[in-house]
């Protein structure tokens, strides 16, 4: 696509019609002259008319082209090059894919090393007149001179962030839009199929991809520690394997500093590892497999909470809640004790239900106020509702409920579950309020499969204030709990705002703090899609990114500015104008001489 440095000069394009207009004006109403020898003129014109007419049209064409050449030359045109030996000032974004998969080793060399070498060769072709950016997985577009960006390339290491190449191309195009120079994008990537997505790109894109098939890879896709918290007796961890290889993978799982447990896990399947006993507190579980050419996905960590099960009291007459507590009691997830009151407001931690008798509602509200709970039960909400989708319970019908009203209007802290858009389960400290009684006459929840896990979570986690065991990949936006104030990773700290998104920069186990209390954790591991190294087919890529040109590493330097690089057409156009001017003089004088 031809670009222009001073496109406003194209406004003079209508001047190209000037020769034609002058030609038409001069043709109007010539005077009549009496001349007897007209027959000689007719004879002359018959002999020379075709040649002269051709010359006239040629002259008109030459003059029009001359004006066009001058106007286009003034606009500073430049055109894409097929081979960038030299190029006009251009804008170029070097998009270097340093996602985790770039650390895979192919034929003894890391992919990233090859890609960096190609990036350096491309940047070496840049000139001070070019606008150059280096964009990597961190999403920061660094602008600089060719040598400075070359040094920046040297310092690039494989990132733990997954790169959605479609999104990064859009980002690169937005960067290019900040510069008036004609531009393009050079994407240096292994272009794994799991990383590409459609992108409406309108600038030239050159994909530089290394040759050779990637190795058959396997990685640990998930480590599931099951229901939390664990009891000190321990629990089981499920490890899933993903990747391109079909062979079973030997996996070892380590809980804290205890000896590892090992087992073979089938490709694409999962294996369960029983671990324990464990000390109470936050514990780290790491699953590892045998090393292969892509080491990044050979380990995966998970966070789990180890704590004694809640010691609770409940009213056996409260049929459904009591039944759930009995099941939890039988399975060791609950014990009798006075730490937690189930169904009523106790002295300590409590899971509170509205009283059957509305007359007792006032007393309950006053008790809540005395405990400093910023919620109270309001009037019955008569309209049936459905609970909203959330982490604790699915969508269940709510036929009867009391409105949960915050004491301070506009402030509704600790909402856990909503129904019909209104708070239905809220938490304040170690007190959990539920807007409906856990009875089918009030809600369908007791009849669902999620009822028991909900009660487990309420008594063992929510009521204890441990609400967040989160997972994610580096760079993902992870919403932290409302009470969170800080996120910590091995001494590094990030102040956060409760309820806001936190983007972990790297893999590892992050702890979420609320003041001095740890209220949750985030297990950050590589995106499992990175484990699938199979590249996308060029045809599929071209269908996703219009105008894509795919070249090998060896052709990268020459082709880079072929996408972004534009040869200046100003010089050739001025030469053309000079040539046309000479032709015009020759034709004009030729007409006068020989016609």
């Amino acid at each position, binding site marked *: 696509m031809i670009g222009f440095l001073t496109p406003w000069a194209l406004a003079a394009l209508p001047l190209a019609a000037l020769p034609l207009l002058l030609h038409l004006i001069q043709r109007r109403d*010539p005077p009549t002259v009496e001349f*007897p*020898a007209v027959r000689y*003129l007719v004879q*002359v014109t018959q002999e020379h008319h075709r040649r*002269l007419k051709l010359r006239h049209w040629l002259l008109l064409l030459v003059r029009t082209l001359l004006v066009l050449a001058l106007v286009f030359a003034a606009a500073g045109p430049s055109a894409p090059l097929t081979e960038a030996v030299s190029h006009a000032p251009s804008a170029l974004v070097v998009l270097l894919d340093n996602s985790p998969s770039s650390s895979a080793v192919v034929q003894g060399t890391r992919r990233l090393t090859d890609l960096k070498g190609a990036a350096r060769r491309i940047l070496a072709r840049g000139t001070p007149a070019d606008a150059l950016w280096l964009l990597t997985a961190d999403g920061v577009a660094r602008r600089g001179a060719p040598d400075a960006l070359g040094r920046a390339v040297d310092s690039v290491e494989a990132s733990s962030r997954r790169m959605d190449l479609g999104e990064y191309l859009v980002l690169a195009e937005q960067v290019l839009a900040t510069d008036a120079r004609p531009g393009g994008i050079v994407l240096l990537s292994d272009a794994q199929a799991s990383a590409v997505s459609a992108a409406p790109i309108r600038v030239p894109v050159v994909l530089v991809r290394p040759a050779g098939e990637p190795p058959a890879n396997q990685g640990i896709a998930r480590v599931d520690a099951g229901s939390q918290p664990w009891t000190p007796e321990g629990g089981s961890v499920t490890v899933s394997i993903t990747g391109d290889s079909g062979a079973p993978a030997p996996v070892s799982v380590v809980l804290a500093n205890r000896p590892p447990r090992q087992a073979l896990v089938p490709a694409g399947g999962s294996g369960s590892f029983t671990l324990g006993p464990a000390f109470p507190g936050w514990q780290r579980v790491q699953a590892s497999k045998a090393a292969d050419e892509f080491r990044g996905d050979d380990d995966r960590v998970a966070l789990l909470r180890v704590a004694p099960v809640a010691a609770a009291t409940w009213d056996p007459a409260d049929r459904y809640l009591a039944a759930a507590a009995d099941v939890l009691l039988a399975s060791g997830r609950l014990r009798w004790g006075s730490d937690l009151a189930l169904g009523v407001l106790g002295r300590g931690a409590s899971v509170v239900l509205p009283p059957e008798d509305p007359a007792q509602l006032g007393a309950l509200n006053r008790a809540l106020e005395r405990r400093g709970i910023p919620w109270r039960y309001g009037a019955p909400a008569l309209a049936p509702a459905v609970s909203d989708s959330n982490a604790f319970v699915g969508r269940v019908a709510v036929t009867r409920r009391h409105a949960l009203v915050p004491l301070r209007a506009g402030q509704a802290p600790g909402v856990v579950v909503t129904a019909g858009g209104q708070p239905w389960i809220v938490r304040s400290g170690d007190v959990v309020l539920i807007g409906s009684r856990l009875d089918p006459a009030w809600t369908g929840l007791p009849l669902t499969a999620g009822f028991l896990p909900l009660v487990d979570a309420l008594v063992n986690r929510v009521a204890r204030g441990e609400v967040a065991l989160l997972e994610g990949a580096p760079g993902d936006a992870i919403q932290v709990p409302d009470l969170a104030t800080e996120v910590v990773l091995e001494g590094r700290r990030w102040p956060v705002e409760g309820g806001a998104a936190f983007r972990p920069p790297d893999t590892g186990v992050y702890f979420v703090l609320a003041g001095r209390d740890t209220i949750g954790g985030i297990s950050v591991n590589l995106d499992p899609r990175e484990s699938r190294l199979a590249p996308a087919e060029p045809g599929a890529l071209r269908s996703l990114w219009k105008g894509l040109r795919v070249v090998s590493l060896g052709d990268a330097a020459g082709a880079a500015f072929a996408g972004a690089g534009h040869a200046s057409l100003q010089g050739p156009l001025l030469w053309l104008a000079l040539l046309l001017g000479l032709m015009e003089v020759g034709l004009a004088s030729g007409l006068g001489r020989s016609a």
Partner: protein
Amino acid sequence: MSASPSPLPRFDLIDPREAASLAGLELLTEGVVEGFLAGLHRSPRRGFSVEFAEHRMYQPGDELRYVDWKLLGRKDRLYVKQYEEETNLRAMLVVDISRSMAWTGAPEKTLAKLAYAQRLAAALALVLLRQRDATGLIAFDDAVRAVLPARVRRTHWNQLLVTLGGLTPGAGTAAEPALRRVVGLLRRRGLVIFISDLLLEQDLAMRALKFLRHRGHQVMVLHLMDPAEMELGGPAEARFEDPETRDGVILRPKDWAEAYRETVTGVVSAWRRACRTSGMHYHHITTDTPFGLALRRVIARPAGVQ
């Protein structure tokens, strides 16, 4: 004995336009012919026979043996005897008076072709009559407009002058009928002088002229052209219109000047070649040529030299 000096100016050598402004047709013609003959030093033609016809005034160049010494004794003037053999030549002037002949590119500088043709024809007629050659006249445009049979009498000169002076531009040009008419007027072999700008159908005209030549007549074609017809000029762009046919062509003279000049040269060459091939004399005369020079070119040159 030397010839008496001519009382008339040398109309034969001055610019035709200026000469025309100085004298009428008769006086101009006589001045032209007198000057022309004086420059020749002797009569252009001889051929006196035994049969006496009449006397005429002695002219410088006449042979003394034909001087009538008896008459000199009686009248004290030199006369020569003219014999009947001299009247054997019968000449016919065929003059084109079409509308194109009335055109001049610069009226203030050059005579129109018709005016020039009138004066040149008159001079030729006077020369011929003085040689005792019977001379006639046919004027034509798209038809024959005037016919004067060939006569040798002195009074015939006056009739020729009146006819020539009364010619006015006509319409189109059709030479063939006029030339065919000559055949009927010249029963014996004679001289046909065709005066025209030749803006006519060349094939038809040449066919008629060849027919005359075939009948044994000497044919002389005088191609008159205005100097402005030799070079194309005018405004930057114009519609050039034929005064006879009103056909026109729009062009820029600057663009076509050279090609036009080449075409005119080609046309003149073509006429000259065609005439030579057919044994005819051809003379290209522009209207700024002094009459004396034109006469010399037509009459004084040896036969066959054009």
